Each structure stands twice: as structure tokens, then as C-alpha cells.
């Protein structure tokens, strides 16, 4: 049932060192040091406002960092623009999805395979192959019969799956997933977990922000616990979940 345990961690993909983000006087991310290693599912947990999404934004370059460094396969990616970081193989989803809402489901998938698109210039594999791959991804995410529907016209769970389908269509090695399963009904949730497991065993490395403890336990190889921008723990799930001090913070009991 779980992905935990018996897999060997591969090379270090992402090295985060003393990463810091200040908004005015507030440290949203403070001195975070952690590694994301190939094949490992890391779950970021922590109360709202702990800095989880900010950490993602710092990794992908959507926010400039205030200090520290981020290295991808040994290379400092701190000064790169978000699109350059994406092209290195780091893909992400957004908590509020940010689908290409007026485009059709199929267009949403096609366009993520076409980052270099300039007029009348072929980018990536030919359109026929891109279409086939989009069809395959939509089949797996249960969206095959919605391919001509505009993203904004999809139901809630379908939007969540389109967000996942978009990332599945990339060749990214590292996925940063921001609450991808929140609000899913039990059936969709099982489908989501099954898809994630397939992708992980196919070689994708995942870092996921999640609140639902069942999901956290069900998929994590490691749990990183953030609070007030600080990394309080980064360990195997059992150790983190059984720490009474962390549980107290997580469940809001700070007395």
C-alpha cells in the first residue's frame, strides 16, 4: 500500500542550503537546508502559513530568494528565470491550479510540451506524437472524453486531474505538487494515489505539500516539517509523525 521504505534513494537532484525569504520583516522561509533525492517522495507538512508554498516558489524561481542557495544536479539555479528552471526538469502544480482556463483540455496538455514554440518553427516532437502523448495522458487521468472541453467548464475533480495531467505530459524529473489531492472525493483520491505511484515507479521524484495525514502516511518516504518558515524535522515518516512536539504544533496545540 505504501511507497515507503524498500527503495534505494538515488542521486541528489536538488540541494537546498540555508534558503531564506523575507517579506519586509517577516521570514517566510528561514535557513532551510534539505536535499531532494531521486526516487524519494518527500512530503512537506506544517500549519498554514508555514512557508511550504513559498519554498516551492523559491525553488522554481517564481520568487527571488533573500539568501542561501538552490542547486540542481550540482548547478546553482538561483539566478535563473522560472522558465529556464522549468526547462531543466523541475515541474510544479499550483494550489489554485492556474489551468489555461479558456483553452481546451487537450490544448492545456499540448502547450506544456511546446515550451519553445515560435511561429512556424517545429518545437519538440511532431504534432502527431504530441497529440498521441496528450491522448495517453488524458486516458490515464480519466479526461479522454473531455479533451475538447474548455478547462473552466470542468468539474472540480476534473480540474485537479487536468493539473496533474499537465505535469505528467512534461519530461520533468522533479515534481513539486502543491496540495494536489485536497478536496478530492474518495474515488478520485484513489485514482490520484494510483497515478502518483505509477509515476514514481517510472522514475519521477516527487515533493508534495499535503495536509491529509492518510495521504501523507500513504505515499511519503520522508516527511519535512515546516513551521514559521523553519524546517523542524526532515526524517522518515514514523519518526516525524510520532514526535509529540511536532504533533502539538501541527494540531494547533501550542500550550
Amino acid at each position, binding site marked *: 500500500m505504501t511507497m515507503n521504505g524498500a527503495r534505494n534513494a538515488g542521486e541528489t537532484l536538488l540541494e537546498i542550503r540555508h534558503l531564506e525569504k523575507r517579506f519586509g520583516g517577516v521570514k517566510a522561509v528561514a535557513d532551510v537546508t534539505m536535499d531532494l533525492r531521486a526516487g524519494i517522495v518527500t512530503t512537506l507538512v506544517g500549519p498554514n502559513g508555514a512557508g511550504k508554498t513559498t519554498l516551492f516558489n523559491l525553488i522554481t524561481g517564481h520568487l527571488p530568494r533573500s539568501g542561501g542557495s538552490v542547486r540542481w544536479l550540482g548547478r546553482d539555479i538561483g539566478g535563473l528565470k522560472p522558465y529556464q528552471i522549468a526547462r531543466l526538469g523541475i515541474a510544479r502544480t499550483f494550489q489554485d491550479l492556474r489551468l*489555461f482556463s479558456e*483553452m481546451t483540455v487537450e490544448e492545456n496538455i499540448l502547450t506544456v510540451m511546446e515550451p519553445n514554440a515560435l511561429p512556424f518553427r517545429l518545437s519538440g516532437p511532431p504534432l502527431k506524437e504530441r497529440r498521441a502523448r496528450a491522448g495517453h495522458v488524458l486516458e490515464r487521468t480519466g479526461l479522454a472524453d473531455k479533451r475538447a472541453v474548455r478547462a473552466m467548464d470542468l468539474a472540480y475533480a476534473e480540474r485537479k486531474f487536468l493539473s496533474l495531467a499537465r505535469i505528467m505530459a512534461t519530461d520533468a524529473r522533479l515534481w513539486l505538487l502543491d496540495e494536489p489531492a485536497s478536496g478530492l472525493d474518495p474515488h478520485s483520491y484513489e485514482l490520484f494515489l494510483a497515478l502518483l505511484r505509477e509515476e514514481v515507479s517510472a522514475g519521477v521524484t516527487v515533493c508534495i505539500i499535503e495536509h491529509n495525514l492518510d495521504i501523507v502516511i500513504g505515499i511519503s518516504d520522508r516527511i519535512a516539517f515546516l513551521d514559521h518558515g523553519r524546517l523542524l524535522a526532515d526524517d522518515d515518516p514514523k519518526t516525524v509523525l510520532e514526535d509529540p512536539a511536532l504533533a502539538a504544533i501541527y494540531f494547533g496545540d501550542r500550550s
Partner: protein
Amino acid sequence: MEAYLLNLGVLISLYAILAVTLNFIMGYAGIYSLAHAVFFGTGAYAGASVALNFSASIFVMVPTAMLCAAALSLLLALPALRVRGEYFVAASLGLQVLAVTVFAEWKAVTGGIGGLIGIPPVDIAGFEIYSPGSFFILSLVTLAAVVAITRLLVRSSFGRSLKAIRDSESAALAFGKNIALIKTTSVVISAALAAIAGSLYAAYMSFINVESFMLDTSVLIMAMVIIGGTGTQLGPIVGAALLLILPGALSYLSFLPQTEIGSIQQILYGLGMAVLMIFRPGGIVGRGRAETGEGEA
């Protein structure tokens, strides 16, 4: 009457080219430009200068006009596209104001306020196109070509990138889109295609001056796009036809005081635009309000 209709047909076709090319950036890239008349004017002055001094051949005049407008649009796009949407509107307004001054003052090239006169008719492989009938056909064919080019672009991977950026810049970035490059490219294409209308306009009128390329022309082109339907294929053409037919049609309504026809026209435009935006924000050809939806995704 026939000459009147042909003249109207030529103007509708040329303005439809302008509306289609503005819609290309407004509707698909989400770039709202109030400087489209600048590229119309640049095309007109460049085409006219080439025709007056060098060759009136369409194969010389039009490409030169396109190149000049494309180069000028880079000046606008490179700094302005680094800022967010509403600031681009302000930047384009700045370019429009600046350009009117240059058009009016740079006597050596634009003839100053007096403009350029005696522009020769356009020449296609030795045939001079000056009768309204043949020019109408030329402008229709050109419109069809511009529509075909923009349609092809919109449906290509480039068009999907434009729409992705319009729908969510941060997501487009997260999927590797070089937003500045893609937006700049779209502005350059739009300006170059608008310049085709400019150079044909100069050859058709045989006289141009700054008054055709001022802010009210930019606003008129934008109104054509919005009224017809932003982001639709047919909308800009419908909008151009409607806004150019309306003044003439009004003068046929004999119960209206003919001396006040200009003011009545302005009141009708204003009212029509306000009512349309309230009840049909997608434009005449666009989707109705019920369908446009405000999904948060």
C-alpha cells in the same frame, strides 16, 4: 453610389486588417495596445516614401513598410513587455502620443502637418491598381491573406503559447515558456501585418497626413475589436464593418438633424459600447455573458 460603396469596401477591408492584427495580440496574448495607429501610420509613411522615391511595386513597398513597423514595435515591446498588462496600455499610449508628434514634425520624411501628397498607385508586376474596383479586390485579397496568416498562427503551437500566457503567466512560466520572447514576437508580427494596411492605405488615398494615425484611430480600432468580439476570428471584421457603415447609414435617416449627425454618432457609439459591454461583454461574435464564466481555475 457604386463608387461610394467600393470606397467603403476598401476602407472596411483595410480597417479590418488593422482590427484583425490588433485582435491577434489583444485576444490571444492579452496585450492591450493603444498604439496600433502608430504601426498603421509607420506602414503608410514608409510605403509612401518608398513609392514616391524608389518604386511603387507592391513587392518593394509592402515589405519595406512591414520591416519599418516591425523595427519600431521592438522599441515598444522590449521595455514595455517587462511590465504587467495595465502598464503596457500606458506605455503604448505614450508611444502613440510620441509618434503623432514625430509624424507631424519630421518634415523630411512625413511632410509634417501637410503630409505626403501625390503618392503613386500601387503597382503589381507592371499593372497599376488605381480604380476603386480593382483596389477593392486587392484589399479583400490582402485581408484574406492576413486572416489566413493569423489563423494559422493562432492554431499553431505559438498560438497555444500565447493563449497559455493570457490565461496564466505564472503557469506558463512554470512550463518553460519564455514569456518576454513570445509576447515580443506577437507584437512584432501584429505591427508588421498592420503596416500592410498602412502602405495600401497610402497608395489608395494618394495623400496621407498625421490626422489618420492619431489616438482616436487607435481607439477606433480597439473599439472594432471589442465590439466585434475579442479573441474571435470573425469579430474584428464584423466590428470594422459596423463602425465604418454606421456613420453613412445614419445620414440616410432623414428624421435626424443632419447638421448634428456627428454628435449623434458619438452618442450612439458611446451608448452602444456601454450597452454591449453590459449585456454582451464577449462582443457581437463572442460568447454571451452566461457562457464566458469566471472560473477561478
